[in-house]
């Protein structure tokens, strides 16, 4: 039960900074392309961008193993990419193609990959938290050495499902890492208009759960905190709550006039762009040359190009298959 930063902060000696930058860049460029594709009506429906928050998913995923599970929200492109889902399958999903990671049935808000233990893409705010508790309960009952990382926004904290899930996880001492992405707004509602107590680690601590706040714009801090928390959880210390203080640079979704925050505020936060910060540091430390950075950009661009080409070439599930997957077992 603490709301201070984890001890033992480490730096570029501990983490592969170039890899972290690349991971963040993959998310950034992927989503920038998504915006273009949305404007071109190639992608439709609701689409929520992670731009600005890349450090969180990137940092947390460093601490997870393949057998660990991930539960995310509708703002999950970043988590999916960082978890290693194939960008081709993600893009095809957003196109509604059968080659998509959810066969085109899910779309942007419902990316799934059973092999990667990526359990969505859940679009009901806080609705994924009880699922994470259940995944962890199964692991705990089976004595498996597995952690479930559950991502959600700070808006979810007001929901009853948050409360119930936090209590169950703590009460039963389950291996859940609760990753709260506090980007200060739930759609247009600022945290202070939604919570009587705006220090979310205090709320989390009231469940007798270890809780720290983390600079969500600093990927190294995110990775550090996640490693420390995952160690605690994996060691049987029960669930852990990390509040990542971050910011979304873009609108809530594609239809948001952003009446609720000032351009200045956004601009201010953009000076803390997690990619810029790390890139600067890598250059200063001589770990990534300009040429290296250019090469990285080209590689990432190629990956995005490939994903788009794959999606473009994708096919549509036959309409006759509409009623497949409502049940796994059909009535004889």
């Amino acid at each position, binding site marked *: 039960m603490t709301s201070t930063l984890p001890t033992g902060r480490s730096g570029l000696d501990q983490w592969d900074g170039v890899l972290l930058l690349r991971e963040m860049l993959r998310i950034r460029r992927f989503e920038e392309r998504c915006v273009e594709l949305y404007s071109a009506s190639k992608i439709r429906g609701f689409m929520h961008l992670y731009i600005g928050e890349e450090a969180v998913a990137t940092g947390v995923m460093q601490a997870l193993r393949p057998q660990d599970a991930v539960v995310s929200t509708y703002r999950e492109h970043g988590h999916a990419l960082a978890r290693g889902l194939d960008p081709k399958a993600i893009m095809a999903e957003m196109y509604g193609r059968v080659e998509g990671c959810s066969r085109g049935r899910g779309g942007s808000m419902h990316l799934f990959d059973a092999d990667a233990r990526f359990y969505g893409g859940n679009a009901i705010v806080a609705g994924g938290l009880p699922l994470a508790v259940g995944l962890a309960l199964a692991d705990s009952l089976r004595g498996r050495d597995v952690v479930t990382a559950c991502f959600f926004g700070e808006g979810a904290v*007001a*929901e*009853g499902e948050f409360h119930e899930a936090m209590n169950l996880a703590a009460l039963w001492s389950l291996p859940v890492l609760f990753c709260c992405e506090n980007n200060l707004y739930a759609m247009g509602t600022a945290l202070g208009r939604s919570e009587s107590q705006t220090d979310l680690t205090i709320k989390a601590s009231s469940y007798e759960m270890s809780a720290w706040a983390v600079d969500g714009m600093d990927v190294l801090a995110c990775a550090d905190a996640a490693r420390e928390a995952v160690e605690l959880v994996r060691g049987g210390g029960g669930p852990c709550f990390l509040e990542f203080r971050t910011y979304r640079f873009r609108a809530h979704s594609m239809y948001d006039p952003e009446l609720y925050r000032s351009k200045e505020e956004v601009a201010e936060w953009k000076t803390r762009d997690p990619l810029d910060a790390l890139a600067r540091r890598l250059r200063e430390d001589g770990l990534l040359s300009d040429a290296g950075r250019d090469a990285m950009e080209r590689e990432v661009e190629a990956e995005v190009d490939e994903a788009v080409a794959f999606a473009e070439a994708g096919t549509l599930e036959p309409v006759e298959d509409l009623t497949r997957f409502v049940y796994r077992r059909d009535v004889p």
Partner: protein
Amino acid sequence: MTTATGVRETTFRDAYREGIRDALIRDDATFLMGEDVGRYGGCFGVSKGLLEEFGPERVRDTPLSESGFVGAGIGAAMNGMRPIVEVMTVNFSLLALDQIMNNAASMLHMSGGQINVPVVIRMTTGAGRQLAAQHSHSLEGWYAHIPGIRVLAPGTLEDARGMLWTALQDPDPVLIFENGAMYPVSGPLPANAGPVEIDHAAVRRHGEDLSLITYGGSVPRAMLAAETLEEEGISAEVLDLRTLRPLDGAAILGTVARTHRALVVDEGWRSGSLAAEVSARIMEGAFYELEAPVARVCAAEVPIPFAQHLEQAAIPQPETIVAVARGLVRGDG
């Protein structure tokens, strides 16, 4: 409905907003409360500008706490207010179902008639916008199962504009389901459009060969289908149910008495749909009038898929309505 002194082009979104604004002006016991109704301007822009006009006490942003603020709306209604509670979409209203069924719908009866709950709960409903399984429910027909509440489903601009005020005057809880795909749709609305009654279904188009019985987002589709049918020489009456609970049984039997054939169009899942109730009522009240069995065109029984072609295949389309109607009338259905 109203004698038009003039007619203007309006969207459903604007018509809903006008209704809310009108209510906020006319009755200071009324306030609007819900997620992002204020600073954001409403998830779908319906309440844009109202915070600026009426201030944060009367246009109240709530945290993400559907059960909490729906319950609070019920409590406020029990204590002299006339709250308009917005649940952003019907999909999230499941989180508030306990409050709706166990409190709002039961309070008057369980208190022996002492405590009524004049709350209005608005929410967006419907599919068709590629929002996938968790954001595409059409549950207004399902809600209509619950005694103690009224359920309204505006299918025209007049009703979008006018049902709210009447609902607010009602001493009982009223749920209003706004079809999301229709928000941007525009059409002519009399300049002096105002409150409308909420007890009866309305014949939107007269016809002789069969009745298309529908509501909400399916009204325009049924109207389209009726036009196509007319070109084929089939005269279809369109009955807009408007109020899903209590159902206007007389109007249902009335249209069947005229046409002797009925097709119910319903964006809800087929099994247990409101369309089933309509069919059952016709069975019970007009069996001997029928020249063909009542048919239904409903949503496919699947969680609504994201991909556009699948989604469209899952929900009622004018072409399907036309085909089924043709079969009913020509007897080859």
